[in-house]
């Protein structure tokens, strides 16, 4: 929880106006509760990433490599040459401010440097100084002129400012929806973080999961035996709740489908219930239709914190998906509920690690549906897959078991603005829950708000930042909670499940968080199940304890 600030204090601490001093003259103040800890050098080293070392953001001296400026300038130049996006976005912003109050971190903090445009200007100012003709000529005349065109030299203080604010952007792309030129500050943050990575300025919450994932196959560093222990746990719980013993399959060569989901769901509540949901769904499909879905511990991570490190690191982690699918000889890959995992799969994976010509165009053997939209990447989202099953009436469901819930749905930034998956999860949820309400239109679908902790910012030490960033989402939840008694916030993202739980507990304590598949599994009538009196959380189902469970009206 936020260490000092309660919600009222946090709300009243939002700065209504920018400070008196101009942004270039306002030095960065690295605040506790906002910044994340520096990376453990061992993790950085394990990945052979540059300049692993001990350093502390709160201290004056960051132990920068001697030629840090050269490295950054060189790195900047390379990226301008490799990414048209960076080059164009550096040049064309008109500073109209349309993106300003679209960022949840700005809304929640009032810090003007959290306006997407100013976040980008932090880099753009250096770009103008070092890479544009106008900047070079005008800058050489006088320092005052430099400031007028918004150029400045890269100094240690500027670098610290970059670091501080680039790790206050969750790469959610909400700003890019509103920008008249589609300038995507997330893209600028991605580049900026790559540059920081070149001189070893990583944060631990990203670097260590990446190192873990590289080695053990998942962010949490769960080794195969521990992974299996958890799965055994879940199997026991499922048996207790449903009376059915599920038998998940692991690394089975020649299985039909390889399933990959974020490892957060194996270890952290309430994701664990979603994980149990997958196991029950797959068991159902196996029993009823003989569909053979297998899990892997080598590729046991859907998420990809490499994406928050550099394009190359993203590629290194992502490569395991295809490698494992190829080794096991499956037909195609099914992906679980995760946000940035799906941006990587949808917009990067095939380009980086494809072509996946050893896989088949995904076909649901149960419904015959050909997933044309995934015919090259060969990876299908569990919401697409499940929606198709429900549409074809292939799942026996009792939505009444979710009647004690009034549900709303949070679009994860990445599945919304990096994919456009809006209807599939809604269709599934509405088929397994009778009470569903949308949050206000400006806070869902392509305009959805980040949970406040995306892109590797869900650490413990930056809780003030997370609660600030979580405010717009939580506020919309509060609205439907008060208006429609919503008590369950559904999402399709593992980081959401962890982060929203904390944020909702802080802002709207009466609402809980669930994954989509947990809701499905609660409604799913398993072959040979006992009378269900408990949900997956082992809580009593109201009205189901005794024999005459009545239907509530919708």
């Amino acid at each position, binding site marked *: 929880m936020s260490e000092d600030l309660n919600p009222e204090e946090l*709300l009243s601490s939002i700065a209504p106006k*920018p400070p008196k001093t101009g942004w270039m003259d306002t030095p960065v103040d690295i605040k506790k509760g906002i910044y994340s800890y520096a990376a453990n050098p061992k993790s950085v080293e*394990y990945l052979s990433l540059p300049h692993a070392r001990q350093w502390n953001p709160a201290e004056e001296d960051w132990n920068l490599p001697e030629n840090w400026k050269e490295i950054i300038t060189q790195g900047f130049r390379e990226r301008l040459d490799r990414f048209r996006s960076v*080059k164009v976005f550096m040049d064309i912003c008109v500073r109209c401010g349309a993106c*300003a109050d679209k960022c949840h971190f700005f809304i929640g903090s009032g810090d003007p440097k959290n306006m997407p445009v100013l976040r980008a200007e932090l880099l753009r100012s250096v770009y103008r100084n070092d890479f544009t003709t106008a900047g070079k000529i005008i800058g050489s005349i006088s320092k005052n002129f430099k400031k007028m065109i918004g150029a400045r030299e890269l100094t240690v203080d500027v670098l610290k400012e970059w670091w501080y604010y680039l790790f206050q952007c969750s790469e959610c792309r909400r700003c890019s929806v509103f920008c008249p030129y589609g300038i995507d500050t997330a893209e600028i943050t991605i580049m900026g973080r790559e540059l920081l990575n070149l001189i070893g300025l990583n944060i631990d919450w990203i670097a260590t999961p990446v190192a873990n994932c590289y080695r053990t196959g998942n962010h949490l560093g769960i080794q195969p035996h521990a992974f299996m222990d958890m799965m055994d746990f879940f199997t026991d719980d499922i048996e207790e709740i449903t009376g059915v013993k599920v038998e998940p399959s692991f690394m089975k*060569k020649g299985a039909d489908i390889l399933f990959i989901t974020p490892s957060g769901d194996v270890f952290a509540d309430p994701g664990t219930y979603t994980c149990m949901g997958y196991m029950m769904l797959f068991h159902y499909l196996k029993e009823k239709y003989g569909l053979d879905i297998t899990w892997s511990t080598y590729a046991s991570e859907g998420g990809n914190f490499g994406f928050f490190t550099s394009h190359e690191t993203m590629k*290194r982690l992502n490569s395991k998906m295809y490698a494992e699918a190829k080794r096991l000889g499956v037909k195609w890959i099914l992906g679980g509920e995760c946000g940035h995992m799906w941006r990587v799969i949808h917009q990067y994976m095939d380009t980086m690690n494809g072509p996946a010509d050893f896989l088949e165009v995904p076909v649901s053997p149960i419904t015959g549906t050909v997933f044309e939209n995934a015919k090259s990447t060969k990876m299908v989202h569990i919401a697409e897959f499940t929606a198709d099953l429900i549409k074809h009436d292939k799942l026996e469901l009792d939505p009444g078991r979710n009647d004690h819930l009034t549900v709303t749905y949070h679009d994860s930034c990445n599945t919304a603005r990096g994919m456009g998956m*809006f209807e599939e999860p809604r269709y599934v949820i509405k088929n397994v829950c009778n009470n569903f309400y949308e949050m206000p239109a400006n806070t869902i679908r392509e305009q959805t708000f980040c949970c406040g902790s995306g892109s590797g910012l869900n650490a413990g030490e930056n809780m003030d930042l997370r609660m600030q960033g979580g405010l717009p989402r939580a506020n919309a939840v509060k609205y439907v909670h008060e208006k429609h008694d919503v008590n369950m916030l559904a999402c399709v993202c593992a980081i959401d499940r962890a982060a929203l739980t904390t944020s909702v507990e802080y802002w709207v304590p009466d609402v809980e968080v669930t994954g989509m598949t947990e809701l499905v599994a609660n409604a799913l009538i398993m072959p040979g199940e006992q009378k269900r009196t408990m949900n997956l959380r082992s809580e009593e189902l109201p009205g189901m304890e005794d024999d005459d469970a009545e239907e509530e009206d919708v």
Partner: protein
Amino acid sequence: MNISYLYSLIAVIVLALFAYVGSKFGGGEALFGIIFPLLAGLTFTVGFIYRIVDWARSPVPFRIPTTCGQQKSLPWIESACIENPTTTAGVVVRMILEVVLFRSLFRNTTCELKEGDKLAYRWEIWLWVGALAFHYAFFTVVVRHLRFFMEPVPVCLQFLETLDGFLQIGLPGLMLSGVVLLAAAVFLFLRRILTPHVRYISLASDYFPLFLIMGIAFSGILMRYFTKVEIVNVKAFTMGLVTLQPHIPDGIGGIFYVHLFLVSVLLVYFPFSKLMHLGGIFMSPTRNLTTDTRAKRHINPWNSPVKIHTYEHYEDEFREKMVDVGLPVDKMLEAQPPEAPEAPETPEAPEAPETPEVPEKPEVPAEPEAPEAPEKKE
């Protein structure tokens, strides 16, 4: 307080005075009437092309469109073929909407904290209205000026003029575009200085083109309605410019040189400034690409080769543990005959056989502490 607009205002006034006074001196008319405009035209053309080519030289390694509508997935779910375009036709329509109607800006909202704890969003249309008025007025003015460069004046231009002057006020007839341009520029300026956060981000280089355009519009209006410049002479002059046989006619006055010089400055300023958003919007990868990224492979010309952690490495490190919990492995433990069907529990340390270029293994990287510890539930 951000007062950088003062610098820009002063700069534009100085430039205007410079042209007004300069044109009065010997040779000044030729300088401001012929040499500067030709140089400016050249700078604009070369600069603009250079900038576009320079952008185009950098590849688009990944397909990163911002999806603002339902994806095309299952046949029974209606997809947003423009806001999330899977076809080139969809992209073309999306781009036209962006360029012609400022589609994204149309979404603009403001966010306000009400009653201390409620965030309220309101549709904010005025920036869109102002920007659209500004650009269309500018566009109309530019197109109308083509009559100075063409002989005979094409019918469509004459039609546009009739449209633009439909109010039929005054003599010479009032052209709406010039007035709207001036008013919209003033509106955009006021918005910039009156909205605290927009003022905070504004640079002198943001005010400069606004003042410049105000100056151009103002001097134009002055000439047309007040000093009543001799249009025939102007036409003779501009025709001379475009046919590269320039000559300076009499009686066109100082304001004309101010007008022409400010236009020249705008032309020179254009390629080196944010005004290049005119070209940039067409090249913005979040808007101009199809979103069928899972259906069609996008090629990255420099797809970096990377070091990866293969399954073999993984199994070599964890084979024993995998075998212990009954996970299938590709290679059996060394002590066992390879055809042993079931997992043996020999806790022999696996000798990593052929470890190609793995980075040094660290002592296990510290596990992130956050997610609630695994000892949940009984």
